[in-house]
């Protein structure tokens, strides 16, 4: 599918379908992330965003279609293989190592990436390369002060930042952010945006998010999903103008917000 491209796309999804029996949860989904992309995936609840993330990460296998990561076909690849090839994600519900310290959490990702997680000697805390990399990542997300605390003792927003540090420690080509701002108070989500802007320029980022302010400020392109398929794709300005999108998503959401 990638034949003919001069530079392989970071992530290329072509004609993805997923059926659970007669239920079609993903219908003909195609999109491409170039290296360094800032792409948002939006859509009302039940539009199939999470299904798509599960298909890309390998939790689910597609019924048909293909997924390429940096030019490599990963449609049938195992979870671990996709990560090794450069796909990292954060989780909607924080999924960290709760009894371990923040630094240990990040170090798990750092050692996994460096493929030294099997070394049975040489204490972690005396390895300058690991300690320095952990420090760099914690500094990037401004959570150095929490290094010694157990993740279980952290506030929700801080856990989100640890999630990001873990994902970035894997030096991914493609980073999937699954609702990074969900459950964050307004002030925190503004700070999150600020921090997201600092993600390395070469990493392609796909963000699934309900916070429209964050989406419009962060993303350069937006894909709108509806009922398992793609409703529209375009630049931020195009999507904001699109009457169809307003109808099914933005309008729907505004009503929903007013009702609640």
């Amino acid at each position, binding site marked *: 599918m990638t034949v003919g491209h001069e530079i392989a796309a970071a992530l290329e999804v072509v004609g993805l379908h997923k059926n659970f029996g007669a239920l079609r949860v993903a219908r003909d989904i195609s999109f491409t992330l170039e290296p360094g992309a800032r792409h948002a995936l939006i859509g009302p609840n039940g539009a199939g965003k999470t299904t798509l993330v599960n298909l890309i990460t390998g939790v689910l296998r597609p019924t048909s279609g293909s997924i390429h990561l940096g030019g490599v076909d990963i449609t049938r690849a195992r979870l671990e293989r996709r990560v090794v090839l450069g796909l990292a994600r954060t989780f909607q519900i924080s999924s960290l190592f709760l009894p371990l310290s923040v630094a240990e959490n990040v170090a798990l990702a750092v050692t996994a990436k460096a493929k030294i997680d099997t070394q049975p000697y040489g204490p972690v805390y005396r390895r300058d390369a690991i300690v320095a990399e952990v420090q760099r990542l914690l500094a990037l997300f401004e959570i150095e002060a929490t*290094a010694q605390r157990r993740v279980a003792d952290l506030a929700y927003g801080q856990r989100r930042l640890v999630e990001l540090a873990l994902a970035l420690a894997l030096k991914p080509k493609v980073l999937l952010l699954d609702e990074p701002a969900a459950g964050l108070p307004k002030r925190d989500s503004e700070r999150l945006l600020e921090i997201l802007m600092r993600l390395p320029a070469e990493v392609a980022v796909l963000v699934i998010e309900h916070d429209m302010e964050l989406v419009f400020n962060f993303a350069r392109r937006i894909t709108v999903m509806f009922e398992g398929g793609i409703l529209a794709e375009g630049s931020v300005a195009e999507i904001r103008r699109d009457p169809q999108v307003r109808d099914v998503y933005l309008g729907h959401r505004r009503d929903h917000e007013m009702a609640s």
Partner: protein
Amino acid sequence: MADLAIAPPRSSVIADAFLRHRLSWSDALIWLVGIAVYFVASEYLQLATQTVIMIIFALSLDLAIGYGGIESLGHAVFFGTGAYAAGSYALYVSSEPISGLVAGGLAAAVLGILSGLLILRVRGLTQVILTLAIATMLLQVATTAKSITGGDDGLTGYRIAPILGQFEFDLYGHTAYIYGLVILAVVFLFCRVLVNSPFGLTVRGIRDNPLRMRLLGVPVTARLLTLYTISAALAGVAGALSAQVTGLIGTDSLSFLLSGNVLIMLILGGIGRLSGAFLGATVFVVVSDRAAAIDPFNWLFVLGAMLILAVRFTPSGLTVVIDRLVARLSPGARRT
């Protein structure tokens, strides 16, 4: 080097955020007590040697349960396999003791790989039951295979040569105790290096969140199999040591009772902290011996009561109590 000159204070904050199994004065104390026993309580050396063996066994179980989250209720199979292997090695191959320990460890490691392939695919209660089932099967095999194990009569009649050709095993157990203590020191240092290493961190990560470890690109089952094999090998060394110093191996070395006892020792002392094995095994072995001496009929009652009290008042183990005491005595000390 230039970076190091600028960054040391902040880096040490990060470095301190990792679990370290530090050598502290309490470690020194343990070994001092260990050596003191040799001189002060020489009439109890057999019991002390038994304790040392159980500490090694409990350390091996701590690696599996405490660090890897592998719930084994059949760890005696590795102990027993190591014991029978060392006994057979002494009978048929060589009476040299060090290579006998290695033989015991290797035999248990092979069994660890084989059973690990089965039990590491599942977790939780299923895993517990599987380890138990494998242990029961092996006990049955050992009881039936009289030509190898001596069946219910046990395996005996082998001779162990002097250690390094120098130190003969004596009737009073002097050599045996020092031998055991040295092996324990080696095993303990090995465990310490292991839990501080990147591999040690990785298995703790798997214990706490295996799915997330997969999403960091780590082949979880392969790592656990490595850990389980190491744990099995160490349990095998403990069994081999037991076979060498007692000169007799019974099927009880494979029994569920032993698997249960070593788990109780670990719970008593504290899981996932190495020092728990020392304290738990010592308290367990000494208390059961004293209780049995005082009241040969009801001594199990004492043991049960002790366990209930321990779980009620120090659910994370006796070492925690000692830690708190140490913390109170030296306000500067901090556990990370």
